[in-house]
């Protein structure tokens, strides 16, 4: 089920950004890896794609399950190993279009939390090793799936489009857990930005490096691809110019003042007076 007609956003952007580059061999259907280039240097692009025939029933819609989590770890750690002796580490671009983590009995049984930890650790280690890691949100970026695929990036870029959303939990489940109706949840989300699902509300939280307008987020035009590529090149230069390899770049915007204040207070109190 990988006909171009039903191509997911992640697959469409992966192909567009790598000039239809051939996916690396030996990967499962759900994790697509292309060794392309960025700003004239080699770069690894990774995305998760839906697989309607997947043997694991709970990962057929682009979710990140057990195999996906560990395979993302593999794709990233291969890159770390390949560049271990090189002074300049190649960039890794996580093209993000993930419905959610997989919700299922098999997944809990075999430790999906550990699989997602595998992916998060690999991306974090790549960043610490000096690989510029860029997260490009082109579709859904939900919850544990985002934690595993993209949230460890040095810089986050999102497309400004109604189909792009970031959240911790789907609406029905979030309503159930917080003992609210979906309508109540939506009413609150309209006034409390961190609870909203849309990318414009997310952009006000100060976590994105850039929010990019495109014409066709689901089937990028040549202009769209150009715009995103230019932004990726800028992100790469910005990361390389930054000596820090942590996520402190995400604390710069004024919307993060509370998170920053907590850190400042901790630092002030850290050493015994």
């Amino acid at each position: 089920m990988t006909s171009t007609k039903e191509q997911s956003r992640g697959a469409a952007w992966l192909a567009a950004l790598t000039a239809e580059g051939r996916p690396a061999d030996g990967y499962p259907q759900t994790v697509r890896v292309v060794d392309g280039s960025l700003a004239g240097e080699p770069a690894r692009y990774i995305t998760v794609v839906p697989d309607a025939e997947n043997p694991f029933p709970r990962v057929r819609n682009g979710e990140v399950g057990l195999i996906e989590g560990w395979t993302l770890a593999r794709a990233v750690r291969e890159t770390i190993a390949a560049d271990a002796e090189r002074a300049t580490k190649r960039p890794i671009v996580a093209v993000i279009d993930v419905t959610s983590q997989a919700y299922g009995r098999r997944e809990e049984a075999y430790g999906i939390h550990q699989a997602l930890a595998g992916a998060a650790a690999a991306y974090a280690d790549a960043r610490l090793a000096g690989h510029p890691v860029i997260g490009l949100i082109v579709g859904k970026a939900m919850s544990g799936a985002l934690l595993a695929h993209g949230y460890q990036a040095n810089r986050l870029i999102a497309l400004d489009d109604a189909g792009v959303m970031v959240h911790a939990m789907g609406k029905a489940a979030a309503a159930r857990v917080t003992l609210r109706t979906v309508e109540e949840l939506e009413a609150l989300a309209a006034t409390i930005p961190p609870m909203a699902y849309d990318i414009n509300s997310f952009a006000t939280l100060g976590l994105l490096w850039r929010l990019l307008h495109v014409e066709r987020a689901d089937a990028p035009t040549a202009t769209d691809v150009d715009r995103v590529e230019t932004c990726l090149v800028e992100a790469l230069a910005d990361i390389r110019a930054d000596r820090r390899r942590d996520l402190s770049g995400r604390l710069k915007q004024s919307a993060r003042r509370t998170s920053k204040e907590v850190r400042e207070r901790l630092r002030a109190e850290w050493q015994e007076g």
Partner: protein
Amino acid sequence: MNCEELLQRTSFIELSARERARALLDAGSMRELIGPFERMVSPWLARQGVVTQADDGVVVAKGRIDREPAVVLAIEGAYQGGSMGEVGGAKIAGALELAAEDNRRGIPTRAVIVFETGGVRLQEANLGLAAIAEIHAAIVDLRRYQAVVGITAGTVGCFGGMSIAAGLCSHMIVTQEARLGLNGPAVIEQEAGIAEYDSRDRPFIWSFTGGEQRYRSKLADAYVDDDAHAIRETIRAALRAGAPARHRSDRHEDFLACLAAVDPTQQARPDAVRALYKEGL
């Protein structure tokens, strides 16, 4: 544990987060940072009609363990299910970041995380998720220098993005009462249906995500009684042992090899998980 031992022991589960932190640190060494009198509360809850708590449900306790500098990060499960909001999440991430910074300057500060959490606080949704990503980043940084030890004792257990944080720890300690898993039972039932996961069937849930099952299938490193003394000694031993040569999160080859042997057309069974990981990990 026999009757006499049960009467003698101090339950860890019954302790508050603050008492747990004190129980883990060397006697008299605890100093709380951003304590409740600073009233650093969530800026998001009051406007939703939810009562705030003066420490936002997270205790940052500096002190010593085995006379070495240490920080204990204890989550209060009794407040909002131990959920991670902007302030509580930043307290944990920020303290771990400072511990890593200490190590880079030659001060061997270690960290212990007491997980009692349902994951992201949905009233602060995206800010909780962002804070959890920062906690992940900080654990991966710190564990390059020191073992990061996690424990989930119950009764809340450890779920959501914080279960991923547990999966990043160098050593993970569990009790019989604890559960460790990505998705809470009610959420799985909501998303996948009751046939997939019955959130009211407690023995079923514990058989997959309970502490004993996680330990027997090598997804946790130690399985302890609900005894504050035993837990304190287990944590000390884990810190003394240091970080493993290879963290569990870094064993993708082993896990992928194990999972290749799973028949996904069959529903999972606890004994099959134990057998597979016992052999392959």
